[in-house]
C-alpha cells in the first residue's frame, strides 16, 4: 500500500513537471482560446485529482 502511494507521488510529480515545462516553453505561443482552455483543464485536472484522493480516504 505504501509503495502505491510512492508511485502515485511520482506520477503526480511527473504530471506537474510535464505541464510546467510545456507551460514555460509554449504558453507564450498559445492563442487566447488556448490559454483559457488550458486554465479550465488545469482547474479540472486538480479538482478531479482531489476528488480521486478524497475517494481513497485521504
Amino acid at each position, binding site marked *: 500500500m505504501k509503495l502505491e502511494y510512492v508511485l502515485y507521488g511520482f506520477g503526480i510529480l511527473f504530471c506537474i513537471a510535464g505541464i510546467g515545462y*510545456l507551460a514555460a516553453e509554449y*504558453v507564450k*505561443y498559445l492563442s487566447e482560446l488556448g490559454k483559457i482552455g488550458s486554465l479550465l*483543464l*488545469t482547474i479540472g485536472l486538480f479538482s*478531479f*485529482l482531489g*476528488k480521486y484522493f478524497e*475517494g481513497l480516504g485521504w
Partner: protein
Amino acid sequence: MAVKHKNLFLYLTLACFVGLILIFIFDGYMGIYDSLFITTGEQEDQIKPDQWPQRDRYWPTSVERDQKAFFRYEVENRWFSSYSADIEVSVWREQEKVSDLLAQPISVASFDKGQLEWVLDATEFVPADIPPEQDYEFTMLIKRADIERRIIIHVRSVLYPSKVVIPEPPR
C-alpha cells in the same frame, strides 16, 4: 460501485491532462512562426516569433546614416504540410511607398525553416536635403500573405563628420 466511481475521477484527471498536452501541441507548438534578424554594425538583434504580438504595430531599430543594415527573415513551418507564401519587403515614409526592396516567394517543407536575406543601405533612403546632423525615420514593411510586420528604421545622424584633412602649407 465505489471502485468504479473512484476510477472515474482518475480517468477524468487523465483526460484533462491529455487535453492540456493536446492544446500545448496543436495551439502552442504547431503553426507558422517567423523571426527577423537585424545586423547593424557588429550587433545582431533578433525579433522572435513570440515578440511580434508584444508590439502590435511596429518594431524599432536604428542604423547610422553611412551604414548598411542586413536583414534575415526566417519562416519556420511546424506543420505536417509544406508552406508557401509570397514575401514582399518595401520601404514606406508617411504612408507612401518609397521603394520595393524584395518580392520573392518562399516555400518551406514540413517541420523545416526557410529564410530570405536582403540589405538596406540607409544612405539610399535619406533625402539629400536632410542635413547630416539630423535624424531620419522610415518604415520597412514585411508582408507575408496577410501578415504584416512593420520595422521603424531610425537613421542616426552623423554626429562627428569625417575628419577634414588640411593640406600641409607649402614651405
